[in-house]
């Protein structure tokens, strides 16, 4: 992973705090739930914005790899992702919905890259066939991405459904979809 994609210590610390409090709140600790509410109010907006940046940086790397120095693809893929973002996020998404949208878009891009690489393997011809174990490993990585993609779509749908019945927590964060 490149240095720019690495999570900062502060970001990691806030995530750990949210994760620990969530665990305690899930176990029934009421004080932890109150604490979690405060933590979500105070730091989750920034953490979500940072995670969205992380998602976009990852997408750029995937686009560059999938485009393989084809300028047209390098232009077309980000535009395609922008369209997807708008379609999936809809109007006035909450910061969490926007982040989940970024996750879906990233996974979709990863799956597209896998498709490109698989097609390239099949086109190599019988003289340069890769080993079955290599293909198996590739398929495993692809399957994992596919499972995550479906799970992320399901999570977004669930969050939307639940948030529709909840006043929700006000988090003032702006995430630019373009």
């Amino acid at each position, binding site marked *: 992973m490149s240095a720019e994609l690495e999570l900062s210590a502060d970001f990691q610390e806030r995530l750990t705090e949210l994760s620990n409090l969530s665990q305690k709140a899930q176990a029934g600790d009421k004080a932890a739930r109150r604490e979690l509410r405060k933590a979500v109010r105070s730091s989750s907006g920034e953490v979500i914005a940072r995670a969205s940046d992380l998602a976009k940086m*990852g997408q750029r790397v995937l686009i560059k790899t999938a485009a393989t120095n084809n300028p047209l693809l390098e232009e077309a893929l980000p535009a395609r992702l922008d369209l997807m973002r708008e379609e999936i996020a809809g109007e006035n998404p909450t910061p969490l919905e926007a982040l989940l949208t970024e996750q879906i878009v990233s996974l979709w891009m990863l799956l597209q890259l896998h498709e490109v690489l698989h097609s390239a393997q099949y086109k190599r011809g019988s003289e340069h066939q890769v080993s079955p174990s290599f293909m198996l490993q590739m398929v495993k990585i692809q399957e994992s991405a596919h499972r995550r993609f479906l799970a992320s779509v399901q999570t977004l749908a669930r969050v939307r459904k639940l948030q529709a019945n909840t006043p929700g927590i006000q988090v003032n964060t702006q995430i630019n979809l373009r």
Partner: protein
Amino acid sequence: MNGKVVREYIGGGELARIVSEGDATRRALRKVERQQERTELERLEALAAPVGELCEVTMILTRAHLLAGGYHEHKGEWRRERRA
């Protein structure tokens, strides 16, 4: 052959040397190909790693938001807390 290593006597002299060199070349080629495949797989995993990390971050934030919003998870299903 049938999962067992079988030695086949080819003979001696010049013919055996040529066959032996051919075998060695094929083995070396296979080794290079396997190395290339390993490198390619590592590259793929490196490309998928940031997305995997993003998924973990999103999962933590989603859980935190839902729990803070008065929900709890029960057997994989999110439910509203009665006294949230």
